[in-house]
């Protein structure tokens, strides 16, 4: 049996309607043409450095380290990027690529709104039209981000189908792409979907580990013992892991959203509770029932509330190179509050899942060990929802 393009072990592939095949082939050809192009990379680096504020800091969290009493903890501060998350890394790359391809319109899905805001931002900067699909449920959970996208000149379409969350926003963006291809680029926000998206998004996010590797070598003269990041589709995690994959002594730990727990049905921990399947253009792990119907998933975090995971993560899990651990809503909310108090850094609730696991892991490690946690985004957008979680009604 022949294997199609874009495989990570058995995962990946291009499971999409025929209508989109020439579009993804065109995208792949354009990416291959520009990825090593000097001019393209010069422009992208300029945007990343002068507009998005890269390189992001690798911050030694001294108080956190002392309080947890174990491994030395560094935070990779993607929350300090323009628009407040790692999403801008990928979006600037894809928007620039789309522009080179002659596309004038970007469409995107968004969960928490971070990718939507980043896409709307790039569209504003590069004079492109932009339409963002967002689950109706998420437009309520993340009302501020909806307003930000509109302020940036984008149209936001609330998706009412299915569970009205990220999964449905992806489905709707894919449907929109099949109806309008010639002038439109689908700016996919995670390392998922059909080839070449998982590779393109990973390459654009790999800037995280390219920087952190160099930064930790400068600060500590050695590589970290563990790198921890949250995983929904998995874009900040793959970006955080990528340049450490060959370094077998660096543990790579992805933190999945367990929601109310992996023994409940209210979870989004795909690797821990799902099984292999085919959905949204890729073969990977999905939360699904015995007949392959995609399961409704749940997490307090709109950005991790997705029933699948990127194919490269599925492969890193299969080979044992990375570990995927579940983190519950409760643990994430505790970490959200804890990091805010200890370091004065309010992490996105997504990133708080990674912090939560580090809080368990660090105390078990020797003091000369090093952990890097990726703070994928800032938590301003989550304050109202966390307040509600704690029983406090606040108005944005």
């Amino acid at each position, binding site marked *: 049996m022949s294997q199609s393009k874009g495989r990570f072990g058995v995962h990946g592939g291009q499971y999409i309607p025929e209508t989109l*095949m020439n579009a993804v082939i065109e995208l792949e050809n354009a990416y291959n043409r520009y990825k090593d192009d000097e001019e393209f990379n010069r422009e992208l680096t300029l945007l990343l450095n002068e507009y998005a504020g890269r390189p992001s800091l690798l911050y030694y969290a001294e108080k956190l380290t002392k309080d947890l009493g174990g491994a030395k903890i560094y935070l990779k501060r993607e929350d300090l990027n323009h628009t407040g998350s790692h999403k801008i890394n990928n979006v600037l790359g894809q928007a620039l690529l789309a522009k080179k391809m002659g596309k004038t319109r970007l469409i995107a899905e968004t969960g928490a709104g971070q990718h939507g805001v980043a896409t709307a931002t790039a569209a504003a900067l590069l004079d492109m039209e932009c339409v963002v699909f967002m689950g109706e449920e998420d437009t309520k959970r993340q009302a501020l981000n909806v307003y930000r996208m509109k302020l940036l000149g984008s149209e936001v379409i609330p998706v009412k189908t299915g569970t009205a969350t990220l999964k449905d926003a992806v489905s709707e963006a894919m449907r929109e792409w099949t109806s309008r291809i010639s002038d439109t680029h689908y700016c996919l926000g995670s390392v998922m979907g059909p080839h070449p998206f998982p590779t393109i998004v990973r390459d654009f996010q790999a800037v995280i580990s390219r920087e952190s590797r160099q930064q930790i070598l400068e600060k500590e003269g050695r590589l970290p013992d563990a790198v921890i990041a949250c995983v929904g589709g998995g874009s900040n995690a793959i970006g955080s892991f990528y340049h450490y994959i060959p370094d077998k002594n660096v543990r790579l730990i992805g933190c999945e959203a367990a929601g109310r727990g992996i023994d409940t049905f209210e979870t989004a921990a795909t690797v821990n509770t799902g099984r292999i399947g085919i959905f949204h253009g890729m073969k990977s792990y999905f939360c*699904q029932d015995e007949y*392959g119907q995609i399961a409704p998933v749940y997490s307090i975090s709109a950005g991790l509330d997705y029933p699948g995971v990127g194919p490269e993560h599925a492969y890193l899990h299969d080979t044992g190179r990375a570990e995927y651990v579940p983190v519950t809503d409760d643990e994430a909310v505790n970490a959200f509050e804890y990091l805010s108090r200890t370091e004065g850094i309010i992490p996105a609730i997504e990133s708080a899942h990674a912090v939560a696991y580090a809080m368990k892991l660090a105390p078990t490690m020797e003091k000369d060990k090093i952990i890097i946690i990726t703070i994928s985004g800032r938590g301003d957008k989550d304050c109202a929802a966390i307040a509600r979680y704690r029983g406090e009604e606040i108005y944005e």
Partner: protein
Amino acid sequence: MSNIRKAFENGKAFIPFITCGDPDIGTTAEIVRSAVRAGADLIELGIPFSDPTAEGPVIQGANIRALAGGITTDKVFDLVVDLRKDVTIPLVFMTYANVVFSYGAERFMKRCQETGIDGIILPDLPFEEKDEFADVAEKYGIDMISLIAPTSENRISMIAKEAKGFIYIVSSLGVTGVRSEINTDISHIVEIIRQNTDIPCAVGFGISEPLQAKKMAGLSDGAIVGSAIIKIMAQYGKDSPYYVGEYVRLMKEAVSGE
């Protein structure tokens, strides 16, 4: 020879699509029989999927209703067993790759053969991925139906050369659903198909009116209608077998009329 060819031996073919289990499996059986009596040449039986990314709102709704009603892949196979007591026209499944993959491709195709399914359409399985299921489908004599889209262009001959059963020409960009106009140059697509294969081809996506169906079938070997039928089912529920039958009769007359 593929059993599916029989569907194209009775003039231009009319092919209705019916979502199984909407509103319930008993009604589905009656709708299928009613469509057969009214002159349907081949029926596409939709196995519902939770997230049908190639479907517009109408068929999405049918999928949701059917799943909420407790339909499963096994119940659809039971339906086919029941239908095959008297229904002799070709029957093909239309579903999504994960439904087959999750059931186990080998087990799925074997059940298709045992129950009397002739082919399968998977809209999220393009040419590049078809080998994953094609070998096992062939083993059990199930035709994997290929789709050709308005954007296929340079891919048409490649797809046509390896096509089985019949070719499903997607009339328009976008998802399934009723359209007032179809602007794709269907004749051009059919011309390239004809240069590469002699298997029949039928046009679907967006067709609802008799005149449209007649035009599309005139350019090819048949017309496929989904959303317009699902709308009738949504409107009439358990009473829909009669109304679907009347609609199919009208459409079959339109496609076969000179």
